[in-house]
């Protein structure tokens, strides 16, 4: 039985004896980093963190040269973009900055960071927002520098990035605050007006004297004024916009109804007669605003998942202005870089922009984009992506794209697009709403005309009732609220939609196609068996490691990991053949590693069935065989069962050998399992299915399966723990929890059902309420009540999609624990 690290929970490797002392007891730690971090936490009086936490943090990594990098953040031009100076601070300069904290997994992490920062002398306040993981820190620059603050955060095992609140963030914040204010005023107004309306209703048999009655009415009038002229402004603006565009939108009847009801009530109050409708007016302004606010919040939460990404581009960069002369270095703010500049990126630093390597040889962590946390080799001529992390050695990079042209910004735009694109049903609902409004206005005019002839005294009120009672907002609110709620809930579960139609198509999917490696299996191959035909095992491993240097396939990574103790060899030149293997020259001899077919050895391979077999050979023949296996993800079988119960047909397409597939397919219960498929084969198979009318949902990893993912009607990319969106996929599963997929299908279907329910209700309501109002059976207050309740019903029904509330901070799911960092080569 192996011990687990007290700090991060990872198993302690054999032979490491780091200990953490807490309350007179010793606990094991897995690495120096965890030990240092845990001891810092304990020694600074925050040991309660271990008692309070509900999730395990990531393994603490020890990075070199941290202080030098952090010092860059003290430079004035770097601070320009995210630090504000307060005028007239008490003794010295007071500055304020926003930071994003990385590594937060539960509420206790936030507590820990706040306490740790607050105890630093010079820090005036440190507040962390649980929901967004953003920290606002105010400090006295004469006593402490920003770099020390960032260092303090690193000491306890987290990363803090200064965060440039972009204009869009500010805009959103302002928008939200205005919406809250409007909502509050409307709520306050409607409650108070109700207070005055109740006595009037209850006392209409003469117990209230006229002057008191008038007093109540005036009080209601005063309370309604801010509601109509401040809270209801968005409706008037919307109606005005629609009018200018000669289009009938949903704001038009609402604005008309409010205006007419209010005007009539004022008239009645001033002349002392008739009815007043202040309660209806305020109530339905409140309900409508509430519906819109909830919709806006849900949409924002959906988008938040990816926005943090873009902020990870570092603020500072080391430019080499006199390239190829390396002697001159200058530190500049990343925003000041231009395409064509050359920058030096050291180990442990992030790339400040997209570019191309011109000198150096290193490996890079691109988990942001590919989901692979294994290093990708970079040599001159190879592109690098802004925001990814350089690991091994310094690289000189020529900048190609900056700012909003970078890949990361593109990803964020994709997500924005998903939210902006309306699915078919919502577009249809919009159109219907348009016709509805026109019809309604015509009916209202007809009603007014008819009643004017029949009984002029009632004509006005009946017309107002007709306008107010109808609820096209059910159409306008139903679909968007349902969709945004469902998207928000799925995002919180870790299933991110990047296109507007994704949810709708997922609900209609008839067939699910799975990729094997990396989708149903963890993609983490491990070397299980070696059979050596010539030479020693260590030699074989060393040769293989040299050949697989820089390859990204999981098999390559597994082989490299197995060979960490072997003396390093260099293989140049290298030739990669996707799907087959690698060929290279080591010490003057040609070697190949790859599939048995690739290394030209026919016949049965001697390793156990069910393992993926890779062989190493030179010109004389095979040298060794390696058997690798990867594991099925947890719940894979449950997922298959659930999907089948939902009526979906299942298929498994894989590039792996059919023999390996058979056992796996039997375990999972998938009958249609095809092996040996190259990407073109998968594409053809999907097309065949679609020709028979199937709606195909394809899951895979975005990199190799891009064309197939694009061909399927809805595509889902599975990323292990990385918060990234793949351009070709319509949805991204951020965690490795496979059950989210079946949850996604269930939620998607439920969303469609609820939208239909809302539309049906809306239809039934309007068909019965409008004629009733036209015939004079509905007084305006009943109309207002009816309309408000109808809107509320629709919104509440849509909110049923939100599912159980999570207590931890939304929306990031718990990232799976990363393996302990590989020893640096």
């Amino acid at each position, binding site marked *: 039985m192996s011990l687990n690290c007290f700090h991060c929970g990872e198993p302690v490797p054999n032979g490491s004896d780091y200990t953490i002392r807490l309350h007179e007891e010793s606990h094991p730690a897995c690495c*120096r*980093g965890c030990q*240092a971090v845990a001891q810092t936490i304990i020694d*600074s*009086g*925050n*040991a*309660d963190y271990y008692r*309070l936490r509900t999730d395990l943090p990531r393994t603490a990594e*020890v990075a*070199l040269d*941290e*202080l030098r990098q952090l010092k860059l953040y003290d430079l004035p031009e770097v601070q320009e973009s995210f630090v504000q100076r307060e005028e007239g601070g008490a003794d010295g300069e007071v500055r304020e900055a926003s930071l994003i904290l990385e590594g937060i997994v539960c*509420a*206790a992490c*936030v*507590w820990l960071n706040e*306490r*740790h920062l*607050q*105890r*630093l*002398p010079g820090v005036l306040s440190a507040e*962390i*927002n*649980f*929901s*967004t993981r953003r920290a606002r820190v105010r400090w006295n620059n004469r006593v*402490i520098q920003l770099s*020390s603050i960032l*260092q*303090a955060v*690193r*000491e306890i095992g987290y990363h803090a990035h200064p965060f440039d609140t972009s204009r869009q963030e500010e805009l959103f*914040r302002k928008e939200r*605050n205005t919406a*809250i*204010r409007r909502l*509050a*005023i409307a709520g*306050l107004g409607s409650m*108070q007006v109700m207070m*005055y309306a109740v006595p009037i209703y209850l006392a209409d048999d003469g117990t209230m*004297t006229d002057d*008191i009655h008038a*007093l*109540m009415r005036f*009080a209601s009038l*005063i*309370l309604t004024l*801010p509601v109509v002229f401040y809270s209801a402004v968005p409706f008037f603006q919307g109606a005005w916009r629609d009018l200018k565009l000669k289009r009938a939108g949903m704001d038009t009847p609402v604005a008309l109804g409010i205006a007419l009801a209010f005007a009539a009530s004022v008239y009645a109050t001033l002349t002392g007669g008739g009815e007043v409708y202040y309660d209806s007016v305020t109530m339905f302004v409140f309900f409508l605003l509430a519906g819109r606010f909830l919709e806006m919040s849900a949409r924002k939460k959906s988008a938040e998942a990816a926005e943090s990404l873009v902020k990870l581009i570092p603020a500072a960069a080391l430019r080499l202005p006199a390239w190829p002369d390396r002697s001159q270095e200058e530190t500049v703010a990343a925003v000041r870089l231009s395409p064509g500049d050359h920058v030096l990126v050291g180990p442990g630093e992030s790339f400040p922009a997209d570019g191309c390597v011109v000198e150096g040889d290193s490996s890079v962590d691109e988990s942001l984009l590919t989901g692979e946390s294994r290093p990708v080799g970079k040599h001159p001529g190879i592109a690098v992506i802004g925001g990814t992390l350089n690991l091994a050695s310094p690289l000189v990079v020529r900048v190609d794209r900056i700012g909003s042209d970078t890949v990361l910004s593109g990803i964020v735009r994709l997500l924005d697009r998903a939210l902006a694109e309306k699915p078919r049903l919502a577009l249809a609902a919009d159109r219907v709403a348009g016709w509805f409004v026109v019809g309604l206005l015509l009916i209202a005019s007809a009603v007014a005309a008819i009643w004017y002839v029949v009984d002029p005294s009632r004509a006005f009120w009946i017309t107002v009732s007709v306008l107010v009672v109808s609820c096209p907002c059910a159409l306008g609110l139903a679909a968007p609220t349902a969709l945004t709620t469902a998207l928000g809930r799925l995002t919180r579960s870790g299933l991110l939609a990047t296109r507007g139609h994704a949810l709708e198509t997922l609900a209609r999917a008839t067939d699910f196609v799975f990729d094997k490696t990396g989708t149903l299996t963890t993609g983490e191959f491990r070397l299980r068996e070696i059979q050596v035909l010539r030479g020693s095992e260590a030699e074989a491993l060393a040769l293989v490691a040299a050949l697989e240097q820089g390859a990204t396939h999981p098999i390559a990574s597994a082989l490299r990991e197995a060979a960490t103790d072997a003396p390093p060899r260099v293989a140049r030149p290298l030739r990669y053949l996707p799907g087959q293997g690698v060929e290279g020259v080591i010490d003057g001899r040609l070697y190949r590693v790859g599939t048995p077919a690739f290394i030209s050895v026919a016949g049965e391979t001697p390793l156990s069935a069910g393992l993926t077999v890779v062989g190493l050979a030179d010109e004389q023949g095979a040298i060794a065989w390696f058997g690798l296996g990867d594991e099925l993800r947890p719940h894979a079988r449950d997922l298959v069962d659930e999907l089948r119960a939902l009526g979906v047909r299942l298929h498994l397409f894989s590039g792996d050998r059919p023999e390996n597939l058979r056992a796996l397919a039997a375990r999972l219960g998938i009958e249609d399992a095809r092996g040996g498929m190259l990407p073109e084969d998968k594409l053809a198979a999907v097309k065949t299915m679609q020709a028979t009318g199937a709606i195909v949902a394809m899951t895979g990893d975005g990199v190799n399966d891009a064309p197939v993912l694009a061909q399927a009607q809805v595509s889902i990319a599975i990323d292990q723990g990385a918060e990234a969106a793949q351009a070709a996929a319509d949805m991204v599963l951020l965690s490795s929890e496979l059950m989210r997929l079946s949850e996604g299908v269930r939620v998607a279907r439920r969303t469609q059902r609820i939208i239909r329910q809302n539309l049906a209700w809306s239809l039934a309501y309007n068909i019965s309420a409008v004629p009733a109002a036209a015939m004079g059976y509905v007084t305006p207050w009943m109309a207002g009540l009816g309309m408000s309740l109808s809107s509320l019903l629709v919104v509440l029904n849509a909110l049923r999609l939100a599912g159980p509330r999570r*207590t931890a*901070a*939304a929306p990031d799911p718990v990232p799976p624990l990363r393996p302990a960092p590989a020893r640096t080569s």
Partner: protein
Amino acid sequence: MNILYLLIPISLVFVGFIAWIFLWAVKTGQFEDMEGPAHRILMDDDMEPPRREPPEAKPPAQS
């Protein structure tokens, strides 16, 4: 019932005051974080207060 001529205007003043308080709360950002306070109250009793120390300028680990 004439007391109502006093009470109702007073209540209007109160409502105005409440509205002003609310607007102040929005302006000072009290509605930005809806989930934090729920967690905070669970964590702040019976804990050792953090010790104030000057930050030592040591690198996190020796190599």
